[in-house]
């Protein structure tokens, strides 16, 4: 499994894991501090709802507390934890399958705050442009069907292979490839229609 852009690829001291395995709660807290952001971002991107992402975050670290004994240092700890987080996200997505796949765009307030802060700087134009790109990307990502978003994020950010995604979802590799193509197709269309940001090359 590739690690490329994943925030889970950061490492922690093996002694911290040993202490956590011995039941030291402060060691668990240190592990949480190290990987909580990565876990929350992953959960939020996969589930696209703050409530679900919070549940994933909690369940993941409860599972870490309960099962850290079973961790063997053969694989990086972050990758082990990521596997738990992905499984928890999938479980919650399956549990909430009655929810509509198209969900509202949640982060506009936060992004508005970001742009207000950025506008105070001298690089106003850059900030506006970056805001437009991120805003469009966030909106498009949020509007993708859950499975498509999941494939896009796991493949492009977390570095999963199509085979690994197919195994996780209980589908074929071609299914994963097809969803990834759809995701990029959708992102490309939205960028060319809405923002046409300068950082992206013009349509051929």
């Amino acid at each position, binding site marked *: 499994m590739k690690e490329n*852009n994943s925030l889970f690829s950061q490492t922690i001291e093996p002694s911290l894991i040993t202490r956590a395995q011995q039941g030291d*709660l402060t060691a668990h*807290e240190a592990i*949480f*501090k190290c990987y*909580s*952001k990565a876990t*929350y*971002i992953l959960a*939020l991107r996969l589930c696209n709802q*703050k409530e679900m992402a*919070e549940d994933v*975050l*909690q*369940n993941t*670290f*409860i*599972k870490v*507390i*309960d*099962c850290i004994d079973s961790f063997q240092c053969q694989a990086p700890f972050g990758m082990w934890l990521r596997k738990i987080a992905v499984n*928890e996200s999938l*479980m919650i997505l399956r549990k909430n399958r009655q929810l509509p796949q198209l969900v509202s765009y949640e*982060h506009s307030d*936060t*992004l508005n705050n*970001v742009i207000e802060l950025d506008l105070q700087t001298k690089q106003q134009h850059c900030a506006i442009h970056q805001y437009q*790109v*991120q805003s469009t*990307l*966030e909106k498009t*990502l949020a509007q993708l069907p859950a499975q498509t978003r999941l494939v*896009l*994020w796991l493949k*492009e*950010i977390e570095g999963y292979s199509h085979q690994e995604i197919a195994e996780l979802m209980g589908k074929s590799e071609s299914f994963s*490839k*097809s969803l*990834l*193509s759809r995701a*990029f*197709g959708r*992102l*490309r269309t939205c*960028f060319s229609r809405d923002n046409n940001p300068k*950082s*992206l*090359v013009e349509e*051929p």
Partner: protein
Amino acid sequence: MNHPNITELLAIRDGESTSASVHVSTCQICQDELNKIEILVAELCHLHEPQLPEDAWEKIVAKHNNTQPKPPGKPTPLSKVLYALAASVLLVGFITLLSPNKTINTPLVSVLPELKAESRALEHILANYQTNSLELSASQQFKIEKIQWELMLLDQKLSLNNKQNNEKQLEKLWLNRIENLTTLHAIYNNNPEVMLAQSTRNLI
């Protein structure tokens, strides 16, 4: 010349060799398309990072503590059934020990049918649970999966020992099976009281 579609472009980007590979390597339009994909991925990596929920760690610790066994409370009808079963096993064991026709070396031979009956009774109780409608935490789900796995292994061992007619080993395995079923019941029932029945039986 027809340009490859996005699925083929993504495959080529991921190192796969397709019929369009040569074309893509020399076509500026296709190269631009690949660049756009890379830019999109880079933008995805730099999306605004959401803030972690407040008191996330405290909530995890509290939730984890809630999943730990609670102090004993008022017995439920189900735990009474288990008490009765444990008492019957105790009684049979006691009678067997006092029986003049039996030697001390084989005191528990007649306990085997009782253990099987207890196991069946527990399974019957567990079959009445609508597990889908139960609100189980991630930690509980994990424990249930672990127990179910152990039960499967035990059944395999029981089947093997049945063929070899190994009484002592069978007895041990049936006891182990009952313990697992009792724990499972305790999780479903969320009642650590039930564990008492289990410890009573261990005195036999």
